[in-house]
């Protein structure tokens, strides 16, 4: 039974993965951020900021929208949930060759900038891509204060 489904070159995927991580960490161009060293976390998160909103993109494949909990509290955006190892009933004659996909509960905490408005959060999930958009406060715009 063994070897009926080999990886191309056995060791290569692992090396590729390692190289990929190194590449990402030491990628030239773009500021290297110490936070980017946290690898292997699930879901992977990209964060962007526009004048109107803070956009959080979480790569969360295989997750049901109902099992996602998204909360904003004290300037922290928390994305939590669970992903089950969804296998066809563990049969008797079943061999597992790879089990790389994340399984279990996860929780990612993202610190929002001060001008984010916790009252205006929108979240959508499509094709395993979660997008959370937090609007920025109108009042955070610079204004002048008169001195009496």
């Amino acid at each position: 039974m063994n070897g009926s489904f080999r990886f191309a070159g056995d060791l290569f995927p692992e090396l590729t993965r390692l190289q990929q991580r190194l590449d990402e960490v030491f990628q030239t161009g773009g500021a290297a951020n110490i936070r980017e060293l946290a690898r292997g976390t699930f879901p992977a998160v990209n964060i962007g900021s526009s004048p109107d909103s803070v956009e959080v993109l979480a790569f969360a494949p295989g997750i049901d929208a109902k099992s996602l909990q998204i909360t904003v509290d004290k300037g922290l955006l928390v994305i939590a949930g669970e992903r089950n190892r969804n296998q066809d009933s563990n049969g008797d004659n079943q061999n597992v060759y790879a089990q790389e996909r994340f399984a279990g509960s996860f929780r990612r905490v993202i610190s929002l900038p001060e001008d984010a408005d916790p009252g205006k959060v929108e979240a959508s999930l499509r094709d395993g891509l979660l997008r959370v958009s937090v609007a920025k406060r109108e009042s955070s715009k610079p204004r002048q204060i008169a001195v009496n």
Partner: protein
Amino acid sequence: MNNTTNVTKVDQAPAVPQAALVPAVDIVENEVGITLLADMPGVSKDRLGVRVDGENLLIEGSAEVKVPENLEIVHSEIRNPYFRRSFTLSRELDASKIEASLRDGVLRLHIPKAEEARPRRIEVKVG
């Protein structure tokens, strides 16, 4: 460079970014075949490719990420959401009968074993 060269190049290598992420997979085998699950978040059906060339199985796809204008990237763990991974199939697998489905960014492939490779029962005819 003339047009013909251009077309050939496009055929050989579709306009893909060089750096690809290796999607995490689960691979399980039972009597009837192999089931492969691959995490490909953000990849929709029309941006997914599953190709078999001889004994080589290639899965690839790119995530569609729409961002608002004037977006400044603050933190990025996946810079280029393009996934690609290849596997070598063995002869006993029937590559012509691969079933693929994509749901919530998870690709599921079922690769059945060829009939002759499956455990089977032989009917005994009477008379």
